[in-house]
């Protein structure tokens, strides 16, 4: 049985089905909404940015769940909401048995040991005045991990496990390269022995050779520590390499979700197909200009979400029904869900 919760008949699983959670599900997000109110002008109406607008997914323990999408799709906001770094407007976030979506204050802080984050920019996420070793030690102290006397040794151990050298513990962030900094950030995230690590574009600031090193490191650490990753990326190639299960987001909603190979070998949603064909490819056969879906324009602003299917404005296959009714996520094959009215017509049976 797959871990993805979105396999209940008729689309999104209703809340009452949530109790039937599989025991190996670590993270369960249900109907998550994050809306940012914008102050309207003196006479203007109040406007709301619906950055995340009803997102549900399950992440199996020890697996990697990828969320892909373009800027403005809400993928990073979803990550921040799971991390409790933005205010959740509606919905639930459950980590194991604990509902973390509504925790506050000290209770939330204590629970944070269990979920940690790696951000995109390794230059901005380390304090320039703190030595690398101290950055990790601080996390251990803050989270009260183990005996305080044993913490320096633990920091050193974490440092080594991310492929850094012990003599580098005394160095400052500016003495490290981008890839090395991201290793420090990863070591710091692992200090609290988290179950879930949320990674928001952790390799997109890195050169391709360094990116490969970092991805390999993340996979090794996942095996060693039994980590679960929620992996946010715009890079389909990286997601394809790393993730077991992938959700594609567009304008605050998941439009397609499937296990990795199902999604990449047989993408169903026109947006997924467009994304996939837009990615530069080495393969000359995939490059014949013509069989690709080329999108016009930019992703629309989450300020004015169109009625009907959110993708209809850029979709080459949109018909009237797409502009009127918003399609629900529905199952198409084993643990493959897609939100498109015309998916049957558009995809030939395999």
């Amino acid at each position, binding site marked *: 049985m797959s871990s993805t919760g979105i396999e209940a008949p008729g689309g999104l699983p209703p809340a009452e089905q949530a109790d039937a959670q599989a025991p190996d599900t670590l993270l369960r997000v249900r109907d998550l909404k994050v809306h940012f109110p914008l102050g309207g002008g003196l006479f203007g109406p109040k406007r709301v940015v619906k950055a995340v607008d009803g997102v549900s997914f399950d992440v199996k323990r020890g697996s990697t769940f990828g969320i892909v999408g373009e*800027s403005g799709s809400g993928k990073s906001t979803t990550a921040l909401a799971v991390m409790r770094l933005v205010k959740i407007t509606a919905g639930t976030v459950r980590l194991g048995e604990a509902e973390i979506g509504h925790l506050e204050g000290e209770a939330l802080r204590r629970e944070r040991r269990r979920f940690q984050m790696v951000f995109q920019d390794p230059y901005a996420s380390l304090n320039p005045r703190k030595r690398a070793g101290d950055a990790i030690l601080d996390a251990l102290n803050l989270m009260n991990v183990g005996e305080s006397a044993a913490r320096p040794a633990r920091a050193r151990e974490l440092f080594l496990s991310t492929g850094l050298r012990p003599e580098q513990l005394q160095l400052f962030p500016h003495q490290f390269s981008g890839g090395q900094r991201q290793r420090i950030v990863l070591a710091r995230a692992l200090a609290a022995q988290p179950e879930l690590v949320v990674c928001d574009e952790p390799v997109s600031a890195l050169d*391709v050779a360094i990116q*490969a090193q970092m991805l390999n490191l993340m*996979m090794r650490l996942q095996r060693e520590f039994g980590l679960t990753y929620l992996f946010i990326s*715009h890079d389909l190639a*990286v997601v394809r390499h790393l993730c077991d299960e992938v959700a594609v987001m567009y304008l605050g909603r998941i439009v397609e979700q499937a296990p990795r*190979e199902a999604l990449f070998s047989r993408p169903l949603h026109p947006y997924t197909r467009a994304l996939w064909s837009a990615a530069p490819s*080495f393969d000359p056969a995939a490059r014949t200009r013509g069989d690709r879906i080329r*999108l016009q324009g*930019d992703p629309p602003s989450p300020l004015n979400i169109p009625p009907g299917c959110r993708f209809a404005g850029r979709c080459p296959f949109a018909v009237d029904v797409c502009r009127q009714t918003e399609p629900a996520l529905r199952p198409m094959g084993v643990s493959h869900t897609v939100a498109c009215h015309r998916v049957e017509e558009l995809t030939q049976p395999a």
Partner: protein
Amino acid sequence: MSPTDAIASDVTHATPRQADGTAAPSRDAQQAEKPLLQVEGLTVEFRTRRGTARVLDDVSLAVGRGQTLGVVGESGCGKSVTALALMRLIAEPPGRIVAGSVMFDGRDLLQLPEAGMRRVRGNRISMIFQEPMTSLNPAYTVGDQIAEAVQLHEGTSRREALARAVAMLQAVGIPAPSQRVHEYPHQFSGGMRQRVMIAMALACKPDLLIADEPTTALDVTVQAQIFDLIHDLRERTGTAVMLITHDMGAVAEMCDRVLVMYAGRVVETGPVAAILGDPRHPYTRGLIACAPGRRIVAPGQPLEEIAGTVPSLLERGSGCLFADRCTQVQPRCRAEAPPTVALDAQRSVQCWLQVEGAA
């Protein structure tokens, strides 16, 4: 004859232009065989507090008329400095072009007086950069900024120049160009801004467009649009393109030839298909292999990686600069810099492994 000389011979479709910018449909055959741009032995140093860094070391390249050359490599390998050096945009000091020549359409740009160079920049050679917002002036309308270049280089009236701006915006696929020409950069999205940059760069019909990571700041669907646009414009206008990128996939999509750089040196160059299909330099091989998602791998299978990081340019040893990261390193690699080996008329590689009887 250097292997780069051969590439121009198959390029005939672009119309050469004279220095004053008018079209010159016929030129003597000798001139047509020369590549549009031929850089030989370009060497650039930067003085820093910790010593002199040789950022470019004996870089040679050629771009034929109407061709697209991809320049790839990691950050700090000298791709952008190459572009800046041949546009003579390196700040002196701290930078200095130590040696080399940049032959562009029969003249050495490095010998031109500054006034002559100004007539080349933005007119015969244009450049677009990674971040379109920082390359546009927020205080002027996009129309003013495009028209300025046209007025300066072609001496047309403002009215004509604005009309050209509208036509260029139309050509790069901006809807309602006659209205948008009066708008400011902040009123455009990232992809649209990059289109404006391209419109501006192509307004004077340059012979060469240098695009330095033009899509890195953009979403993948928008990147595809920009690549299609550059591709179409190249077909229509015969403008040669030098595409600087870190993405081998982009090279595969866009380019005829590719130049792989490492630590300020050219390590391999040749036609894209040949290099992607049969990379000879261990670094090129690593760059291609470590890109994720190219093939379906079993779950948990690690990517091939290039161990280590780029060496410091301050301490160039005598040997091959890639030696410390190379899986096939030989004793000789550390002692002596490898020569440039011509594999055929089209390809060359800088590696001891390709030298017969060496290693």
